[in-house]
């Protein structure tokens, strides 16, 4: 009698264990079919010389990647060599990341730790800023950039665009880092002061490293924002040599038709790889260190 009951209980426990194993994986994995298959398609298409049906590749070819070593010729349009353009994008993106990290970590620390008049209204203000949709900021920004004399000035224009993009990201980055700073116990800072650090040194040597996970999160966001910038670059730059990479990509897709899928997929892959690399680098930092998260208990 007792044996039967325990056997049944054992089976139920086993069943629920298996279920507990399957369900999380299903929830996580099944929707992923969509992006993963899309990525697989992109890779396959980049190396095949005709349109892939489903995931069945055409003939294998490297030809789609010819933009790496020759000028892009698209019908009768000739585009600049891709490497200077890539350098432009890298400059914009990395500068944006660096500036964002520095400015928002300084400001986040100040808002989190220091006392000053207008502190709470500043916090409200930061959140309120996110209520303003990017659409119309774009119109106003176009206007402002011209008034600042930054139209068509090659590198100077690119630098101006970098500053603007950074500025647009900073409120959100500051807010996120503030949350991370909030989570650090006061004792840590106290210890630093006892050791004779000024506030600035405490920030730099002690607190900044602790919020590294937060830093890597905002670095990733900043990277993706900068890497994807095309509208300001396209509108403001006269010389195509100073375009950013997405402008080139977008021009090749254009408003007409998706003409050469293999070529587009190859360019897309080429464009994707730096963001993947950056993301993986950032993830490594994120995963290693025990997170001091934005938890309000």
């Amino acid at each position: 009698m007792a044996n039967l009951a325990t056997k049944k209980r054992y089976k139920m426990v086993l069943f629920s264990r298996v279920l507990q194993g399957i369900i999380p994986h299903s929830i996580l994995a099944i929707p992923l079919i969509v992006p993963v298959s899309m990525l697989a398609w992109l890779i396959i298409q980049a190396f095949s010389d005709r349109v892939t049906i489903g995931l069945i590749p055409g003939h294998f070819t490297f030809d789609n990647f010819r933009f790496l070593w020759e000028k892009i010729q698209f019908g009768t349009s000739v585009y600049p060599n891709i490497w200077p353009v890539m350098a432009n994008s890298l400059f914009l993106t990395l500068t944006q990341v660096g500036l964002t990290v520095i400015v928002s970590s300084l400001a986040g620390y100040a808002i989190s730790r220091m006392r000053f008049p207008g502190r709470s209204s500043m916090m409200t203000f930061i959140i309120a800023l996110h209520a303003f949709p990017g659409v119309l900021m774009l119109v106003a920004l176009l206007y402002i950039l011209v008034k600042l004399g930054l139209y068509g000035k090659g590198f100077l224009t690119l630098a101006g665009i970098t500053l603007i993009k950074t500025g647009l990201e900073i409120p959100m980055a500051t807010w996120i880092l503030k949350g991370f700073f909030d989570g650090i116990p006061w004792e840590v800072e106290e210890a630093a002061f006892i050791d004779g650090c000024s506030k600035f040194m405490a920030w730099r040597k002690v607190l900044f490293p602790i919020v590294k996970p937060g830093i890597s999160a905002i670095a990733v966001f900043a990277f993706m924002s900068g890497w994807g910038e095309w509208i300001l670059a396209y509108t403001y730059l006269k010389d195509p040599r100073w375009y950013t990479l997405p402008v080139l990509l977008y021009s090749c897709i254009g408003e007409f038709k998706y003409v050469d899928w293999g070529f587009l997929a190859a360019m897309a892959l080429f464009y994707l790889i730096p963001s993947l690399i950056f993301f993986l680098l950032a993830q490594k930092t994120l995963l290693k260190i025990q997170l001091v998260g934005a938890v309000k208990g």
Partner: protein
Amino acid sequence: MNISTKTRKNYRQYLLAFLFLLPFLLFVLLCWIGPLGTTILLSFSDAKYVLSRMSYAGFSNYIKIFRFDLYVPEILKITVFYIGCVLIINALFSFLLAIMVTYYIKHEMVGAVYRVLWFLPRMLPTIIYALMWIWFIDPDIGLLNPILKLFGFAGPESWILQKPFSYILLVAVNGFIGVSWGMLIYSAAIKSIPISFFEAAMIDGATRFQIIKEIILPLLRWPMLFVTAWQTLSLMGSYGEILAIWGSHGTARAAGVDVWALYTYFKAFALGDYSYAAALSMILVIIGIILILIYFKIFGYGRLMQST
């Protein structure tokens, strides 16, 4: 004597804070205050095609939106539907995913792989993402319809245009991008709960489900508020993916996915009607601010404001 040193100390503190905040303030001034001011001014003007030709027009833009614009009611409905559905994904489903990946997946490596894969859509530039979707939903060379066929569903000829399917596409496209953000925030928050909490609960014999309900859920109240509020605002202003996939405002309207932000974009950049677009945007802003206030009331904003 005491008082003067105290005020001097305060003064030094303020100065220090100001220095820390200086770069931040400069950027905000250039990139936010300036454009915002311009936008607000624009909404009360009648500038078309060229911004430098503004002249005062009072509330005429706003009046036009509420009384004369035929399309506004429809657009409002679509926008509310859109935000509602995607929020469920971005704020709630992402929470589920975060729990799965941090709490249920034991192997660190596997969790990391899942995280990266879920972040994939967000890392792609919009045009590429759109291109991939266009391939995916293509009835001839895409994968979606064949997959659905395996399960016995017949996919439509055009996901972009046919009514119920275009709504599903709308929500899916934006959901895949938004979900990873919430997942990131929630994961970070869950991971920072001290292990001791879990150990204590398990010693007391709590089931996994109970642990989630009693420990994780309450501790994640603030992140949930943050994510919901933030995502609501983001969604109100989002149109990039919709524009990239549907191609033009006209097609989007025919498909019933014409959201407020897309309409604003259309008025501004296709028609050059900048002031009207500014007024449309300001409406979004006002609604956004009201919503934030409501959210904070519900979740208790006061505690946030306490200094550490």
